[in-house]
């Protein structure tokens, strides 16, 4: 067996893009900018291959003769050590053994298709660094070239003579003697075994096995830990909570059920026959009706901890995982669009300010965007909506929210496995990747997380999932199975355990196909290897199901059988390695009981004196602040038009680059019925009051959808809570308070929550030089995602001003609500009243705006959020390439104030439920009549010149060319 190496360099005259990118990253991190870099990528080929064969593969398959050149030799050959840039240090980066290497898998297929018998392939990257000291080479390697959680760095010669193969596994049953352990020992077992269970939970397990008069096996303990994990059971929020705030005390038996789910139950009851929810908080995604033929489903997940350690892989598998949720909803929905929201620290953070174990936020952001891009684009699912939010408290714990919408035939919205049917796994094979992901996601991140939980980090393979999707749709339409779910956190343990919850199931762990030898039965059971789905297939359909999968190259295997026993029986060959009752697994967990407490901070006044003179500068600063600034660099890397349903794209306006409020897609190509996708989030408000933060987020998500044309009576929303350490009563209290707002808003607006997810304990701890523990907790972050519906896509509108001479109206009431605003952010001020929502005003406004849009009275509509009216007008102006002349005198304010307070409030207050509408002069009467029941004021006209001119009476307060406004908005993230 010989190991061959193929190095691929850019051909002479071709730009070395990879090297240029690395040099950019080196400069961005403030490292030695003088360094010269040459980069190659390559393949290691193992097998009985002649040099001529490898050379032919290199030329015809692995490289492109027009733009690339190759070096081919056996590993160790001196020719491979010849630097293309003179004296330099050589660095190789390889995926660690067991880490998914999709390109190598495909290359092997291509090689075998050419009739050459290679046995194994591995990819690598190779870098030559010149004019740089060894220490800097090490820093560059660690910070830019490689990520230790998934890759290994080899300095100098590769020094391999073969690729790793798994070692054969010899069965050995492991018993964990839990019955005799003391409390300290139980806690120790929970920690060292990465079970992340509390003492009470460990004691419950101990008692259970004492009652059974035996000790558990390792796999039984792991099964319980997976099922009881925060990630899988949401035990904190669905637990008992004693909550206290300024209004008094409240006891919850199941907090989520009594707030967020409760609101939906109440709305459905009130709607009666008009109920348009189909399946909520039950399946892998929420389902609502769409038209006579189809329902639509929506799910948003987080993948925070993996993304902190390995941004590309974490985000990649995050989107891959959430796509499997609609695929595993009902009998399988077809994914039709993605949405992504990320929270990062400032990408310009100085390298020396990074705590140990933290990746630089710029690298995190680039990695996350690339990870989402590569998975979403390959799946052929348009990424149509998203947001980026920056706050330095996300430094050690970035947030990655990924969502997916699917469409499913109405009659396929429910599923049920039956006793006697086969448990069938299809898709990716099982490896050691992702072990302990479910339990790890419930743990606090520390500077050691990287070494401790390397296995929890993975790379996805989108094409495997696409192949699974292709056969899933066909098998569904042929009616070959009765139930399906995805393998996500907890792997088979979770998926099979859930599917068999009401029945009982026997699993044959030795029948699960493996990526490589050497996995023990427990690893097979809890591995979170990606791209796997589990089905319940009646015996009479198994052959057809199998053949369908085989015909498209998808692996499908029987791994168990559903049985009417109420037990989970795990077998490896002839050995029973686990035997638990479903009842203990799913109902045995002791309830989590928590105290929660909330005390809203005292509202302090803002001193407005002397603040109004700089209105123009403040406007430019807000436009250039990272949360508001253009995200075009990100958006264009996502395919937002595949599937051809695009109606309103994320970028709109005369130059296709303005900030759209919501995306609109038509999921059925021969129908005009459309969906809107939007979101709302404002973590800064949470520093003031999480109730108003949640209410504002809901209002924002809804008004974004309404602004493009969604019917406010057909908007479904999702909640995703990302919070700090909820064992602290005040942290949990801030979450309960947000959930109370969710209940109030949903019921008042008749907007049901249909699905949700929480991610708790988002904190990062490290030790400073003095050895003191330092903890950064993320700001309380609630993402609200909205999915609206439009009867006829042709009535939709965009936010860009359309024509000079048209009139400009402000809908909604403006209060002095600058607490947490971007005006205070850019001025580095504190205090103020955080924006609140008055649902008695907002519901009529949403309905009136919708009525005006759907009857064609509105040429442009934009919601007002960060930066208030000033930013909204500026965005509408530069997106439309048209100026505007606006008088603030008409802005209706809520409150008794004047002078500078009034001016700043009118320009920059972030009061909720406000829209700016552009109306043709001929439609003014009809528009005003439609808006007669709500606050709606004429502010001015779209301009003849390309100048945004805002005055108050005779005094001009802002007068700026739209080009300057646009540049301020576009330049910060124009990477």
């Amino acid at each position, binding site marked *: 067996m010989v190991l061959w190496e193929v190095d691929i360099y850019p051909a002479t005259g071709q730009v070395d893009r990879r090297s240029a990118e690395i040099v950019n990253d080196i400069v961005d991190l403030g490292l030695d900018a003088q360094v010269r870099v040459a980069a190659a990528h390559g393949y290691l080929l193992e097998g009985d291959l002649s040099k001529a064969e490898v050379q032919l593969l290199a030329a015809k398959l692995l490289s492109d003769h027009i733009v690339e050149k190759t070096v081919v030799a056996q590993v160790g050959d001196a020719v491979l050590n010849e630097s293309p840039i003179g004296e330099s240090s050589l660095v190789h980066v390889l995926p660690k053994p067991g880490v998914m290497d999709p390109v190598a898998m*495909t290359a092997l297929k291509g090689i075998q298709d050419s009739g050459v018998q290679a046995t194994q392939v591995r990819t690598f990257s190779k870098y030559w660094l010149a004019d740089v000291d060894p220490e800097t080479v090490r820093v560059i390697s660690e910070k830019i070239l490689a990520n230790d959680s998934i890759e290994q760095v080899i300095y100098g010669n590769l020094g391999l003579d073969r690729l790793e193969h798994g070692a054969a596994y010899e069965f050995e049953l492991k018993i964990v003697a839990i019955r005799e352990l003391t409390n300290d020992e139980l806690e120790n077992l929970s920690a060292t075994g990465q079970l992340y269970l509390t003492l009470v939970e460990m004691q419950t397990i101990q008692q259970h096995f004492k009652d059974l008069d035996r000790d558990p096996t390792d796999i039984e303990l792991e099964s319980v830990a997976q099922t009881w994990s925060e990630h899988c059971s949401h035990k904190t929020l669905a637990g008992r909570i004693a909550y206290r705030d300024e209004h008094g005390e409240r006891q919850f038996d199941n907090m989520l059920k009594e707030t967020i789910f409760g609101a939906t139950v109440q709305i459905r009851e009130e709607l009666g026959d008009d109920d348009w929810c189909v399946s909520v908080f039950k399946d892998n995604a929420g389902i609502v009706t769409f038209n006579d033929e189809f329902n639509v489903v929506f799910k948003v997940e987080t993948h925070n901890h993996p993304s902190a350690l390995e941004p590309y892989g974490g985000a990649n598998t995050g989107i891959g995982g959430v796509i499997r949720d609609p695929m595993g909803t009902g009998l399988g929905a077809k994914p039709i669009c993605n949405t992504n929201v990320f929270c990062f620290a400032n990408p310009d953070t100085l390298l020396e300010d990074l705590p140990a174990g933290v990746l630089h936020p710029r690298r995190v952001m680039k990695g996350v965007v690339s990870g989402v891009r590569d998975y979403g*684009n390959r799946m052929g699912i348009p990424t149509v909506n998203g947001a980026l939010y920056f706050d330095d408290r996300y430094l050690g714990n970035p947030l990655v929210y990924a969502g997916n919408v699917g469409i499913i035939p109405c009659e396929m919205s429910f599923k049920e496995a039956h006793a006697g049917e086969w448990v069938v796994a299809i898709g990716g094979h099982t490896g050691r990747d992702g072990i302990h992901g479910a339990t790890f996601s419930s743990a606090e991140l520390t500077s050691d997380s990287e070494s401790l939980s390397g296995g929890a980090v993975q790379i996805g393979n989108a094409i495997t999932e696409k192949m699974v999707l292709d056969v899933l749709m066909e098998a569904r339409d042929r009616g070959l199975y009765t139930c399906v779910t995805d393998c996500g956190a907890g792997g088979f343990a979770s998926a099979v355990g859930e599917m068999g919850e009401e029945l009982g199931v026997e699993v044959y762990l030795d029948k699960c196909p493996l990526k490589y030898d050497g996995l023990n039965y427990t690893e097979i059971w809890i591995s979170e290897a990606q791209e796997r789905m589990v089905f319940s297939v009646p015996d009479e359909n198994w052959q057809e199901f199998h053949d369908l999968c085989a015909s498209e190259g998808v692996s499908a295997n029987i791994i168990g059988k559903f049985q009417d026993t109420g037990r989970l029986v795990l077998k490896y060959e002839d050995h029973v390695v686990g035997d638990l009752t479903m009842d203990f697994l799913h109902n045995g967990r002791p309830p989590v009981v928590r105290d929660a407490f909330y005390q809203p901070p005292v509202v302090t006044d803002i001193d407005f004196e002397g603040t109004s003179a700089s209105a123009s500068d403040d406007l430019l600063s807000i436009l250039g602040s990272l949360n508001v600034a253009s995200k075009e660099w990100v958006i264009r890397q996502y395919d937002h038009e595949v599937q051809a349903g695009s109606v309103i794209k994320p970028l709109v306006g005369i130059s296709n680059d303005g900030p759209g409020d919501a995306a609109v897609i038509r999921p059925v190509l021969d129908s005009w019925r459309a969906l809107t996708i939007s979101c709302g989030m404002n973590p800064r408000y949470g520093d003031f009051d999480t109730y108003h933060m949640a209410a504002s987020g809901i209002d924002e998500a809804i008004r974004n959808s309404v602004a493009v044309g969604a019917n406010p009576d057909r908007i479904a929303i999702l909640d995703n809570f990302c919070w700090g350490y909820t064992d602290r009563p005040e942290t949990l209290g801030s979450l309960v308070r947000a959930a109370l707002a969710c209940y109030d808003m949903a019921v008042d607006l008749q907007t049901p929550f249909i699905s949700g997810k929480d991610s708790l304990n988002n904190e990062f701890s490290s030790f400073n030089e003095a050895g003191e523990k330092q903890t950064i907790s993320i700001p309380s972050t609630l993402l609200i995602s909205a999915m609206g519906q439009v009867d006829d896509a042709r009535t939709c509108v965009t936010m860009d001003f359309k024509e000079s001479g048209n009139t400009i109206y402000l809908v909604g009431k403006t209060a002095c609500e600058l607490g947490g605003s971007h005006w205070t952010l850019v001025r580095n001020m504190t205090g103020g009243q955080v924006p609140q929502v008055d649902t008695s005003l907002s519901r009529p406004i949403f309905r009136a705006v919708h009525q005006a849009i759907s009857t064609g009275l509105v040429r442009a509509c934009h919601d007002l959020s960060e930066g208030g009216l000033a930013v909204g007008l500026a965005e509408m102006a530069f997106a439309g390439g048209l100026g505007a002349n606006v008088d603030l005198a008409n802005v209706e304010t809520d409150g008794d104030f004047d002078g500078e307070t009034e001016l700043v409030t009118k320009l920059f207050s972030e009061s909720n439920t406000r829209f700016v509408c552009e109306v043709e002069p001929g439609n003014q009467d009809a528009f005003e009549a439609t808006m007669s029941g709500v606050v709606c004021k004429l502010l001015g006209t779209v301009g003849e010149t390309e100048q945004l001119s805002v005055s108050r009476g005779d005094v001009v307060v802002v007068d700026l060319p739209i080009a300057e406004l646009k540049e301020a908005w576009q330049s910060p993230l124009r990477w």
Partner: protein
Amino acid sequence: MATPRVLVLRAPGTNCDFETAHAFERAGAETQRIHINRILENPDLTKDFQILCIPGGFSYGDDVAAGRILANQMRNHLAEVMREFKASDKLLLGICNGFQVLIKSGILLDDNENGDPPATLCWNDHGRYEDRWVHLKTTSDKCVFLRGIDQIYLPIAHAEGRFVMAGEHVAASLQSCDQLALAYTTPAGDDATGFPDNPNGAELNVAGVCDTSGRVFGLMPHPERFIDGTQHPRWTREGLQAEGAGMAIFRNAVEYFA
């Protein structure tokens, strides 16, 4: 009019097959989406069709290089069938990933003396995947799919779309044979002079190429993504067109068999 039958070829990772079939159907064709494995098992399946379309996507993940694995599969196993298909007055269309496959498989342009394609599609100049709308003009009288189209506005969405030829002799040959069929332009219709009008750095602003007969055509832009007025990025300001400009390309293909 005879109704032509279109084979929309799919492979692992193909993802524009539904909307491409939909566009052909709206133009009046009958379509069938067929997996490459079925063609490899039974190459004669292709004989039932008048048009073969390789749609966009990421065949085999675009691992190794965009379209390379599918291209090599077709080169290794289907070269003869494809030669016959081309010789029988039928049409072949490759969109985006399909263009990458057509060019790398040797189906679109004849191989050079070493058995390698004379041109390629490689990484965009700026090194990123890019989704954006581009202005294009027809630069060949030969291409069946572009008949009657002078200028057209379509979206691109790719990472590896930079058209590069193996030397000036290739450019001269393709130009003299009128094969450089579609070019990126400025909004006014003049030659693009760089990003973003030429979104990937393609040599000679080439966005699409046809074979010497004009019946085999590959292009980077996605005509199937502009068959309805609502797909235009500015329909809310410029007015809703009765149909998207991309329909003309599919209609030309269908009308060839009229």
